[in-house]
């Protein structure tokens, strides 16, 4: 090894107490997970994805003050952004930094009905991404047809009436990350000035204060290829 690349001792000793203190904080237990939340590749929805999408929406709703009094329809994130599984038991702050090492912030993006249709198509094409409760996507084959049909329900009446949809996501995705090109011409982007990671930490702390353990469910929010599943 190149001798110039060893740690400078003076610098290292300056860092040391900060490092030790930080490690102490990162070892702080935020909440207890009632179950494991694994990264599961190839699934349309996962407990981990549902947990993070739902808690993001919950935290965002506490912060979001819409000028038009129109609330957020749902949250859309990406599996690629969730970087580690959460174990059953103690969840440390460091673990949340591992789960979400990026500095992405939550934003509310208002998109047109056309863009929303592209979003639905995208979700079927990529086989799902973490979404919150509030949107139900079901893909199935018509019994007497070979044509693959896609159905979705979103506060049904609203879909008929409204021409705009409000989606909670990260600034990274709003900028077209993970091929989310339907965000490319937004009607409006409203920053919530909170990092996704901080939202997760906030939620964990608040659940812990309430005496709750971390849980989430799989439900009908996104079901792909329903007939084949039967």
């Amino acid at each position, binding site marked *: *090894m*190149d001798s*110039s*690349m*060893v*740690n*400078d001792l*003076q*610098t*290292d000793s*300056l*860092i040391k107490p*900060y*490092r030790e*203190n*930080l490690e102490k*904080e*990162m070892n702080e237990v935020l909440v207890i997970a009632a179950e494991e939340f694994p990264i599961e590749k190839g699934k349309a929805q996962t407990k981990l994805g549902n947990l993070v999408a739902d808690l993001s929406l919950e935290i965002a709703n506490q912060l979001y003050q819409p000028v038009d009094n129109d609330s957020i329809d749902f949250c859309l994130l990406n599996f690629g952004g969730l970087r580690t599984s959460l174990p059953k038991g103690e969840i440390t702050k*460091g673990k949340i*930094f591992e789960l979400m090492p990026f*500095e992405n912030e939550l934003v509310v993006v208002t998109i047109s009905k056309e863009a929303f249709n592209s979003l639905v198509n995208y979700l079927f094409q990529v086989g799902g991404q973490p979404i919150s409760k509030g949107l139900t996507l079901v893909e199935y084959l018509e019994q007497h047809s070979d044509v693959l049909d896609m159905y979705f329900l979103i506060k049904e009446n609203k879909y008929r009436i409204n021409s705009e949809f409000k989606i909670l996501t990260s600034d990274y995705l709003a900028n077209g990350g993970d091929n989310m090109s339907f965000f490319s011409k937004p009607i409006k982007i409203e*920053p919530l*000035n909170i990092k996704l990671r901080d939202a997760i930490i906030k939620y964990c702390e608040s659940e812990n204060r309430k005496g709750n353990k971390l849980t989430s469910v799989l439900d009908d929010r996104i079901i792909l290829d329903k007939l084949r599943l039967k």
Partner: protein
Amino acid sequence: MNNRRKFIKQTLIGSLGLTILNLIPFRSFAANKKKYTKITILHTNDVHSHIEPFPTKDPKYPGLGGAARRATLINKIRSEEKNVLLFDAGDIFQGTPYFNKYKGELDFKLMSLMQYDAATIGNHDFDNGIEGLNDMLPFAKFPFVNANYDFKNTVLKDKIHEHITFLKDGVKIGVFGLGVELDGLVDKKNYEKTIYNNPLPIANKIAAYLKETEGCQLVICLSHLGYEHPLNKISDLILAKNTKNIDLIIGGHTHTFLEKPTEIKNLSSAITLINQVGWAGVNLGRIDFFITNTNKDYFLKSENIRVE
């Protein structure tokens, strides 16, 4: 085993206020036995609180970076070179739990220990608000330069320098800073009453002042404008083309890993160099200027050194 990958080693000769004349290897220049003063410019940008090296399992930069090894590298260069200046082009803050917990204190202390000579302010340096930056300033034993943010209505009033000069071995070096447009990038509540001014006319005015009035042989701009942007948003490339009297732009913001400094023909048909070394302290930028005693010619050698 030599773990230091030297991405580029290029030598070229230029002349102040004129175009770069020729590409000739360093040795043949040295053989001319012209008297020159060597000024070694070292620089970082967008370190983003990366105090520790990346984890060895990191997919992109396994084991790279880290303040303690950067310090070793800087110390080594200081022991070899007489006239070293060390700069940072902003976004010192934000990116690891070190910032979340210590709010920039350790970053500034480490930069002070490494004897940075100046830094400019990046958009993320406003992340804890203008008060958050102000609170950390006492830990920085080096000056901040910025010429296009007007801080007169903020707590940073009179604390940020428009420009500064250094005298190294008889060579005068002028340094000023430019910051990116804050609106749309930084929350208003964080930059408060900071006024963003168009960098172009300011850069021209200050560079002319530094070169002509102050008589600086070398004018350096620490820029957090970004290397290049879509549309016509002001960037280092646009800045270089549309100004004169700037010899080197040390850039940041776009996390651009340049293999070597970009040479741009500026308004007076001279060369303005732009360099940027990615982010997170993965690289340390180095450019050696050789300034002759007639103050007419200089040539440079540059290398971006991977900190690993």
